[in-house]
């Protein structure tokens, strides 16, 4: 998995790109927590997400390569709630499905799901990164 393949975002504006992977309602709720942008909350949240997501993406790759199911489970569990928080609804749903599958040991469709999650995570990061440079100014 790599983050330097901008295929899905090529040619599109940042706003239209994140509209696909980030739920605008969720983002709106985040802004409401800091309506005047005084504490630069949105920026801090997105930065925290980015840092944590990049770390988790690395852990995910390692765990998957090692076939470490509990490692994967931990990654998706954490990612599940943090992605939900920033409105990455699709990623959060994928994480929840994977976590549930591992819990009930239903590994049949797991590889496809893991691939899908991998892609979605890349897309979310792709959407988040440009927002960070523009952070503080509401979109």
């Amino acid at each position, binding site marked *: 998995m790599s983050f330097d393949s901008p295929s899905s975002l090529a040619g599109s504006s940042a706003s239209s790109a994140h509209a696909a992977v980030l739920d605008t309602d*969720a983002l709106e*709720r*985040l802004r409401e*927590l*800091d309506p005047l942008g005084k*504490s630069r*909350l949105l920026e*801090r*949240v997105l930065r*925290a*997400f980015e*840092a*944590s997501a990049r770390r988790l993406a690395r852990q995910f790759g390692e765990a998957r390569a090692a076939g470490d199911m509990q490692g994967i489970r*931990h990654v998706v*569990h*954490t990612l*599940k*709630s*943090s992605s*939900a*928080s*920033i409105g990455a609804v699709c990623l959060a749903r994928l994480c*929840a499905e994977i*976590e*549930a599958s591992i819990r009930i040991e239903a590994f049949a469709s797991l590889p496809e799901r893991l691939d899908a999650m991998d892609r979605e995570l890349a897309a979310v990061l792709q959407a988040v990164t440009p927002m960070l440079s523009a952070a503080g100014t509401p979109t």
Partner: protein
Amino acid sequence: MTLRVEPSADDLPERPRVLLVDDDEVNLLLTSVALQDQGFDVIEASGGEQALRVLADWLPDIVVLDAVMPGLDGFETCRELRSLPGFESLPVLMLTGLDDDASITRAYEAGATDFFVKSTQWSLLAGRLRYLLRASRTRVELERSKSRLARAQDLARMGSFDWRRGQNGPVFSIEGLRVFGLGAGEQPAFRSLLRMIPEEERKAFLELTHSAMDRSTVLATDVHARLVDGRQRIVHIEAEPEFNEHGNLVGYTGIVQDVTDRRLAEDRIRHLANFDTLTGLPNRRQLIWRAERALEHGRRLGHEVALLLIDLDRFKVINDTLGHGAGDDLLIEVSRRLRSCVRHSDQVLESSLESVGVRSHRTLEAVGRLGGDEFVALLPEVSDEEDAERVATRILEVMRKPIMIGLQECFVTASVGIAIFPRDGTTVADLLRNSDIAMYAVKSAGRNSSSLYRPNLAGKGREKLELESALHKAIERNELVLHYQPKIDVRGARMIGAEALMRWRRHGQLVAPGDFIPLAEETGLIIPLSEWAIRETARQARVWQDNFGFADSIAVNLPSRLFERTDLVEYIHNAVTTYGVPHHAIELEITETGLMKDLQNVIPSLHRLNEIGVEISIDDFGTGYSSLAYLTTLPISELKIDRSFVRDLGMTPQSSAVVTAIIALARSLGLRVIAEGVENLRQMEVLHRLGCGIMQGFLFSKPQPPEDIERWLQQTVLPKKAPWIGQASSHDNAEPVRVRAREPRGKPIGKLP
């Protein structure tokens, strides 16, 4: 600056402190910001280990824990936290995933207070936290009030119990076990509790509990219990029935309380209220209560009840001569003897009194002390009056043996009056009064005997009889007082002595001497009355001697029959030496009539009195038919001109003739002469001109209480302010007297004859 107010259950801290633990930075940040926005102070920790480190020196109001974390996860953290001292009841909220049922169960097992599904609806979390904080406050309050209750129960030696149907026995709280002297964990079986109750009480207690359970009613009773360690206690049990939704009795819940101390105190109070402290006998109140119960029984069962009033003869003499301590000892011994004359029961079983038909009223029988030297024997059932008389005879009999008081042998007799229900009265008050009348009849007939009440006693006039019996008690009740009228030396304008006149203060009013002296004469009471007057006069002489150097004599009126008594001289001697005044401090007045009636018997006394220095004055002189021959031989010192002659002075020529004659006679015999009943200045002038310089009367002073006499001396005599002062020496002055003496009108108050 805000004032910090102690928070209560409804009043949360202004900004509750939250320890927020989550390994996910995004969630941690967002939750933290959201909670701060909702009014919480948040400290964040990114994992279990860090959370426990924070808790080492900071106490939050609530902890929010993410369940799934790397390292020490939420469950482990919660378990650790709970084991720390002081964190046992700190509210902990566990955050779990939506579909994570297993975590919910685990959360509770780890000691979490509640769980919450992670959500991006931050305000929901804040609401839940507030709810948890309130619940926790309430719980803390509850714990506090529970421990306060436990402490209160401990202080009250009280504990609770619970009994469920089908259980072997009641289940007690720790405090409840303590009441029975048991430790925590020693839940006793019902049978072993029963064994603590004395056998004779056990059956009644079982019946009571069974009947309460059968009827599903409240159980409230006191039982005696002998605890395992041998202590005897009284335990109060009170329990209420509990019902299930069908209205069936499912058990009892209640309290047990050690009421031993309270019961002992109550018993003591009851005893003090109902028994005489000196003799231990039932007191007036208890006696009246018993007598009322006895009358009820008599009425119902149709039998007679007898009330014996026992009054000791001359107890006052013993008290006065041997002292009150000796008097008390004597009363105690008399009480002991009186008790032996009846089937005396100290305790009346009130419950048994309610049962009809049995002879339970027998327990009412008792001797009680009404007060002073008065006792009552209550015989709750007599077959006839002879029954009561037999008891009276026994009473007189047991008194016959001398009573040793210290080293002194005392002989005490009693007078007993008997009244029988229903013949002599249907109320306790009537019976008491009539037994008193009967007792008084014994006294006047010479004491040391008993008498049944007879209507003819009342025929003497109830009022008179009541007056008689009241007068009988007047001395010991301190109802008698002496007033004093000064004897004046008119020329010197000074007081040279006084006459003591008796007054009876009854129910706050003065009874005129004319209303009780004749009665006292008739009944013989005049003797103790006179004896009292002698002692009181001696005492007063001493008071005046101390207060203003009084060195003259005070005259006491005595009836002639007192002069017949061989111990009169000794009695006076004792009285004056008791108070440390000379014998001449007391002067005795005897009426001319009284003297002449008993001359032969009186003369020896007069001589002996004269020998010890007690002077004798002949009162009302001129009214009798004195044998002048005798007068010359009698050891008397003074003649008192009767008031009737003084009153008529200047109005009838005879009166001044008699007065002139008396003065002449007195002079020839070497006797003092004094005029009494002097009411105005004209009388004073005439008397003075005729040669009588000593006078007594309203012109100078009416009879007054001793302290008023002192004031009169201070304010009238010494400053020479009275109209009569100066008149005597200037009576031949041509100026007519203009100043009228202010004096009360009306009949002069009488005096002892």
